[in-house]
């Protein structure tokens, strides 16, 4: 049995055992996460750590007599032991929930829909990871760069089910080779090859395509004083700003609790440029549409339309608490599968349009610096270069920026690229994340750098 089939069977058995243990008046929502991953961590083009992780997690929400209690556990893969563990878990939840106070905004699972999506993939054989993944990087090493990063591969599964009848399954077999080529001067090119079908020729092509960029980064570094510069933000750089719509972002709860940096946008006190639009768009196919209650989000939800607030991210709990209309958001009310609308700017002319200024390939370690004005600080990183008269002059000593997003995507947003890049989600805290974003590059006139 394939790993995906095995996990789907475990999900089914767990649901049977969990729902079968419920008594009258009780309700339950079940989230399932599973992976069978191989991780190859490398440095200097050599193996630093190599291993595998097989895990299946259950996350539960139990409801009885107005009480709500969450719980989590992992499944061992032993069918009998797991069935007993599930039944025991429900008994413990029943006992512990009875001690809790009533949940004033309890929303019982009500979803009844069913869905099933499964995507197969082709991964390198584990016995050939060195030849397939690392040896092509020798081209970078020969160019004087250290080849550093992580290759992760294998199936990742998600499921959700509720005692109200909802049952959803999403399984995909994916890889992501997240890598950097680091020069002795500290400059680097960073990229990620991700997908379902590993293609060794394409992998080698992507690596060698970066060699010219490395050459430019070997030039002497230019130290720029703080100030305002014209900037081209690559799609990777733009992508780093997108989580600020999730983090103290467009959540209904955050707005109501004084924790949304976008309150002025929502209240109509401020707007972004008409060139800027953002949506949640599951047509990207990179992650499931269902949430932990088994609710299915609309395929597309406009969040910012032509610079103006369009919709908040609203969970069923927030909907009940604040009288808002829910849109099947998960309880954390973040943006899933973000998609920034393309513009009409020809990306091939980015250097020419930039003229004299900074080409920013990547930014690093962003954080809110002034919440009320939506100001974000962070650093330039990797292959950022100084451009004069449309030509690359030299890499820069990294700069700190501190800029309000109302300005960055407001009066300073000169153009939005026509071509968008899909940036795969490669996070792996606890388990490998799914998803990604679709973002264009952007030309900014006068981005503020402070250090």
């Amino acid at each position, binding site marked *: 049995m394939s790993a995906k089939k095995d996990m789907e069977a475990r999900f089914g058995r767990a649901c049977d055992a969990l729902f079968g243990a419920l008594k009258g008046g009780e309700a339950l929502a079940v989230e399932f996460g599973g992976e069978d*991953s191989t*991780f*190859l*961590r490398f*440095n200097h083009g*050599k*193996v*630093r*750590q*190599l*291993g*595998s*992780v*097989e*895990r299946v997690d259950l996350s539960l929400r139990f409801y009885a007599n107005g009480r*709500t*209690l*969450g719980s*989590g*556990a*992992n*499944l*061992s*893969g032993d069918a009998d032991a797991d069935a007993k563990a599930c039944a025991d878990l429900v008994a413990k*939840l029943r006992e512990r929930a009875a001690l*809790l*106070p009533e949940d*004033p905004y309890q929303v019982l699972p009500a979803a009844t829909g069913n869905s099933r999506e499964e995507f197969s993939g082709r991964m390198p054989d*584990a*016995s050939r*990871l*060195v030849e397939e993944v690392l040896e092509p990087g020798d081209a970078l090493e020969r160019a004087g760069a*250290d080849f*550093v990063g*992580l290759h992760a591969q294998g199936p990742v599964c998600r499921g959700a089910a509720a005692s109200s009848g909802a049952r959803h399954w999403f399984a995909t077999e994916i890889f992501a080779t*997240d890598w*950097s080529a*680091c020069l002795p001067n500290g400059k680097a090119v*960073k990229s990620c090859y991700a997908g379902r079908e590993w293609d060794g020729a394409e992998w080698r092509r992507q690596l060698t395509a970066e060699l010219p960029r490395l050459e430019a980064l070997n030039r002497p570094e230019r130290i720029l004083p703080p100030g305002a510069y014209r900037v081209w933000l690559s799609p990777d750089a733009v992508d780093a700003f997108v989580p600020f719509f999730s983090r103290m972002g467009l959540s209904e709860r955050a707005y109501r*609790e*004084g*924790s949304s940096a976008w*309150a*002025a946008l929502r209240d109509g006190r401020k707007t972004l440029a008409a060139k800027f639009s953002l949506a949640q768009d599951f047509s990207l196919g990179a992650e499931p549409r269902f949430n932990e209650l088994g609710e299915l989000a609309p395929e597309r939800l406009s969040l910012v339309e032509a610079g103006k607030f369009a919709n908040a991210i609203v969970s069923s709990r927030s909907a009940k608490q604040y009288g808002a209309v829910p849109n099947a958001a998960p309880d954390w009310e973040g943006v899933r599968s973000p998609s920034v609308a393309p513009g009409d700017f020809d990306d091939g002319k980015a250097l020419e349009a930039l003229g004299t200024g900074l080409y920013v390939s990547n930014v*690093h*370690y*962003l*954080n*809110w*610096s*002034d919440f*009320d004005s939506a*100001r974000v*600080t962070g*650093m330039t*990183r990797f292959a950022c270069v100084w451009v004069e008269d449309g030509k690359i002059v030299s890499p820069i000593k*990294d700069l*700190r920026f501190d800029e309000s997003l109302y300005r960055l995507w407001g009066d300073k947003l000169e153009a939005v690229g026509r071509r968008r890049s899909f940036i795969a989600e490669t996070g*792996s805290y606890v388990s490998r994340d799914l998803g990604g974003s679709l973002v264009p590059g952007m030309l900014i006139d006068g981005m503020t750098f402070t*250090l």
Partner: protein
Amino acid sequence: MSVNLKQLAGEIAPPGAEWCGLRRVRLSARAVQAKDGRFDLAYDYVDEGCMVEVLYRGQFGYAAVASLDSGALSRAALRALELARVGSARPVHAFDRSVRPDTVVKWETRRAPGRLPGSDELCAFAIDATRAMRSSEKIVRSDFLFELRDEEMEYASTSGAAIAQLKHVIGYNATAVAREGSLTQRRTLNGPRGRTLQGGAELLDFPAMKDEALMAAAQAVELLSAPECPSDRRDLVLAPDQMMLQIHESVGHPIELDRILGDERNFAGSSFVRLEDLGTLRYGSELMNISFDPGVESEPASYAADDIGNPARKELLIDKGILVRALGSLESQARSGKAGVANQRAQLWFRAPIDRMANLNLEPGASSLDEIIGSVEKGVWMEANRSWSIDDYRNKFQFGCEYGRLIENGKLGKVVRNPNYRGVSSGFWRSLFKVGDASTFRVYGTPNCGKGEPNQVIDVGHASPVCAFRDVEVFGGEA
């Protein structure tokens, strides 16, 4: 589940393996939160599994499974061996068994006897406290969160290691958000999740916690009418709850040996520190003494041995401002030839251990708080971190705090809102001109230090006295 791990290690070691180790981890956690005088959330969580590690021709391979069944572990050991065999064709370093010591030790968090409150009792307190915090109509949110967990780690190997460690961790926090017009201010207890400590019931002083939660709410309201922090250069006095972040970002990460060796360049970043700097680099002023100390009571990253079995002990890393030792595990020490500490740790059973900072502390100095404040002609006091950002070489940083007070002519003055500062790590630490004595020393910790590929999050502890830095760029918000 009770198993004889040492026996299992011998049974599952596959033919051809030069060494085999097993690390079982069981996390048992619970949390409750109340918001605005009402129940908000409660959960219980258990996560248990085992990582099998195998050494083959200088390369470790690992396989992690959520099972203690000998059949499942035998299959995992074979998978680990196969991966070690693959990696041995091109290893970054050829390791041997010396990086997996045969340590035998049993350890548990020291805590006062006494029953821990149940989730119902914690909920009742949190509901009462958050209701009381909403004494002003300007408070738009009040919450109180408890997080309690036990982490049981057992480690055994074919070479005789046998380690059993049990860590008890309690974290709690109150958050008050105040709003007036378009202005928002928030206060927490020493920054988000700063009060994450090892211990038991002695950490839960309910009357004191309620007083502090009320103080947080009052200060959030107070900040609404405070002026912005000035934007200029002046002396900066940092409370221990902000020193925690300053030490973590601008000392801890840069002196991690795996970063210096380049392992993190694709993710968390590198370091401005080079291998040749060890023993010679003037990191800070002569008042700066930084220690790795896994034995401080209540500090969250205290332990007897790290996750590869290296016995942990206190080491001075920065001595009178000179960097003398790095945060490097046995593996990093073998690769670099430099001295290190026992800090190879993993998030849980499903991640391989890497270099971590654990408890990293600034040793107390000789100045009382009054002496420190009295020595500042024009300055600002800042406490409780709210924003943090630093470059990938750990040089250019910008940090923001929740609460500030001006210091003028040796006296604490009016409150200022949105206090921020920025600088460059080494220059900043060289401007350290006062270090508080033991009376100003406080222990804090956080459970969410992120690092590694695949990613890992882990407990770190930081203890520090109040410190003063000369001539720092400070600034406020835009409102």
